[in-house]
């Protein structure tokens, strides 16, 4: 890993001479998403003078929190032990159990704290993910949550600097001293008594992704903000912060290939995959589309599509399936025959016809039920489709083009229960991390809907409180 963005110190002082500066504060928060705002609020309420540097402009503030819509919290209906078991199951044990216990315990009181800071909740959405027992939904989604937190932060006197990007962090003997920030094009040196790093992962840094995934990363779409380039993460790692999880771990789903390169968000998702067949450029199926209920399987399809030639695939279904899933933002491709559809996809007509004929011939009679693991399956295919298998025989036929859509990366920095970053084998003195940058401590791999916001909220609050304490000392 190389890092060569630091300018001579004198350049950073020019901003100060020009009269535009970010004043020295007690607690500096790098990153203006959920975790950063929770840290800033909690530090300010502990009596610290706080500033947030957010690299996005105001309209796009908040990192990927603006695309979220719920958090997973323990409650009477969802006991802490069940939550913990769910976490252990999805991570395969790749979790810091002690920290995970802290986060799960604190998640019980998170909704009340959020309400007190202006966040509102709503009954669960009517979508295909049935999560109301385990997850609390934000009224209006993550951007509304961020708006509430920014308003609360401004009321507490937190200073917020947009288009302010951290370039480098000066750390000596595990002690943070200052950051170099470029604010609206001006290099500045910002000093603080403590730093909370809450600047997200590197999922929108296509060059970094290419280092890991090779050329196929060029065909990835980024579902969220273009601003999560992992700069702060890289600086911390190059300063000796201990990494957690793996650079090659990322959460990716199959999204509509026509989506914009960045920030397409939720509307580009496709929930129709388990209802039809999925074929690649060769017109061939490559995985059991009906393996399990969609909420449990959608997160594997980004990787599956990434492994196909050209990182491209198509979800194909017939008119029986129309209306059984939430519509995507783009209309499906449509044709009156499989051959005509293949032409529109740029796939060999013979190959697609043969795949569909083989599939139709392998479908066994069953009772179709899209909301449960039903009895409709194929027999004798490689691979079989084990649920919701119905012959594609009712024109018109439809297809959605698919590409891997990367949601977030897992690589982070190791932290203690007090959110202190572990450097050279010991906790840093005044350096904390929260949110996606340290979520890998708890979610080393796998996925549990809404836990990212829980980690951001709980660890953000802990990091803010501890940073304020550290600034007082």
């Amino acid at each position, binding site marked *: 890993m190389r890092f060569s963005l630091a300018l001579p110190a004198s350049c950073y002082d020019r901003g100060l001479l020009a009269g535009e500066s970010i004043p020295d504060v007690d607690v500096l928060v790098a990153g203006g998403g959920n975790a950063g705002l929770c840290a800033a609020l909690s530090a300010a309420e502990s009596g610290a003078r706080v500033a947030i540097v957010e690299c996005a402009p105001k309209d796009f503030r908040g990192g990927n929190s603006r695309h979220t819509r719920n958090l997973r919290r323990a409650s009477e209906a969802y006991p802490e032990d069940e939550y913990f078991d769910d976490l252990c199951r999805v991570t395969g044990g790749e979790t810091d159990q002690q920290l995970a216990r802290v986060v799960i315990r604190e998640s019980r009181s998170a909704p009340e704290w959020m309400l007190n800071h202006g966040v509102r909740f709503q009954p669960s*959405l009517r979508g295909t993910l049935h999560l109301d027992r385990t997850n609390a939904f934000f009224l209006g989604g993550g951007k509304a949550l961020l708006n509430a937190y920014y308003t609360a932060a401004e009321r507490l006197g937190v200073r917020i600097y947009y288009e302010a990007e951290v370039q480098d962090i000066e750390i000596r003997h595990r002690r943070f001293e200052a950051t170099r920030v470029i604010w609206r094009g001006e290099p500045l040196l910002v000093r603080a008594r403590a730093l909370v790093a809450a600047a997200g992962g590197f999922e929108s840094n296509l060059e970094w992704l290419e280092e890991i995934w090779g050329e196929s990363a060029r065909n990835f779409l980024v579902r969220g903000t273009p601003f999560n380039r992992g700069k702060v993460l890289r600086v911390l790692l190059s300063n000796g912060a201990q990494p957690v999880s793996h650079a090659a771990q990322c959460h990716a789903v199959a999204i509509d290939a026509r989506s914009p390169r960045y920030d397409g*968000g939720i509307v580009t998702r496709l929930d129709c995959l388990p209802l039809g067949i999925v074929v690649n450029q060769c017109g061939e199926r490559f995985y059991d589309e009906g393996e399990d209920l969609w909420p449990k399987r959608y997160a594997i399809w980004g990787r599956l599509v990434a492994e196909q030639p050209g990182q491209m695939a198509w979800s194909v279904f017939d008119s029986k399936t129309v209306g059984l899933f*939430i519509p995507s933002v783009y209309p499906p491709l449509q044709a009156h025959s499989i051959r005509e559809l293949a032409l529109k996809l740029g796939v060999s007509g013979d190959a697609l016809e043969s795949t569909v004929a083989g599939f139709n011939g392998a479908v066994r009679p069953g009772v179709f039920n899209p909301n449960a693991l039903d009895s409709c399956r194929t027999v004798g295919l490689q691979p079989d489709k084990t649920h919701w298998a119905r012959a594609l025989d009712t024109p018109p036929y439809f297809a959605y083009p698919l590409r891997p859509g990367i949601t977030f990366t897992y690589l982070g920095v190791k932290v203690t229960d007090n959110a202190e970053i572990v450097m050279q084998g010991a906790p840093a003195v005044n350096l904390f991390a929260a949110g996606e940058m340290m979520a890998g401590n708890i979610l080393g791999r796998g996925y549990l809907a809404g836990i990212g916001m829980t980690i951001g909220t709980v660890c953000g609050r802990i990091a803010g409180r501890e940073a304020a304490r550290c600034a007082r000392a």
Partner: protein
Amino acid sequence: MPEPELAEPLTEGARILTICNACRYCEGYCAVFPAMERRSHFSPADLNYLANLCHNCAECYYACQYAPPHPFAVNVPKTLTEIRVASYRQYAWPGPAGAWLGTAAFFAGLVIWTIAERGRGAPSNAADFYAVIPHSIMAGISSVFSIMVLGLIAAGAARFWRESNERFSGLLNASVIPQAARDALSLRYLGGDGHGCTYPDEHRSTSRWLLHHATFYGFLLCFASTTIAAVYHYALGRRAPYPYFSLPVVLGTVGGIGLLIGPAGLWRLKQRQDSAMRVREQNQMDRPFIALLFLTSASGLALLALRETAAMRWLLALHLAIVLAFFVTLPYGKFVHAIYRAAALLRYALERSREEKST
């Protein structure tokens, strides 16, 4: 199937609601989004309905991850406002004649009232309005215009309802009317949950909700005052002027104060409205209505205060002329939002009850 030629806001409405329908983060805010989710395509009739369901609270704009400058450029409140204003014109009968009619009515009123007044001698009692303008003329002209205006408003409402493809019997559906009435009268979707709404800017405030209540209930009190005065006149044989602490005067005064504070405040808020949501045609429709509400009340209160002075004669003519202009413009101006919004809420309640029955 060829698409029908759509007007520009309708095209934009169909585009952005397709995005909303794939997102659905806003479904907890108001009735628009659940109503949208019941549809997969957005015809002009659907869009008119959704636009009239929208209270323009702007919550969904500030919460939107796709709001400009995002390339998807979703701005639901503004687009629905544009569609709504156009729908008012579409439903109005015999067309968008409101402003001209109002001005004509104002001057006609002044002339009529002045001529009526000229024929009379000095009033025996300084506050005796009917000595200035005979009761029969006042009541006669008001009745003629009231019936005409009610008929025109009903014609617009009928057009709105016909476009919905709902049965006219739905308007009398006793099982859903209480819900629709509660939603309308409490301004549930304009921050009636106690949190307020994001108007005029991104910070939530209850001021619009309070000012609208002052305006609407002020209007109702004035209406009650006039009705009670008519009962006094015809049933009890008691002639105006009524004492300051009589029911009609107290109701009219309290309502009149509401109609000063409410419209003045709404005007002020409108000036501060976030430019992202501003629609010129909407303002052109709102401002005359707000002004006429305010002037009706101001001239009425001035008449009450000065009814025992020589100024009463021309204040009476002025007040009645403003009232006439206000009435005549009702079917063509912002007033109709009350009719279409209430009808849209009723249709929403009907749709929801059908959905509940079917599940």
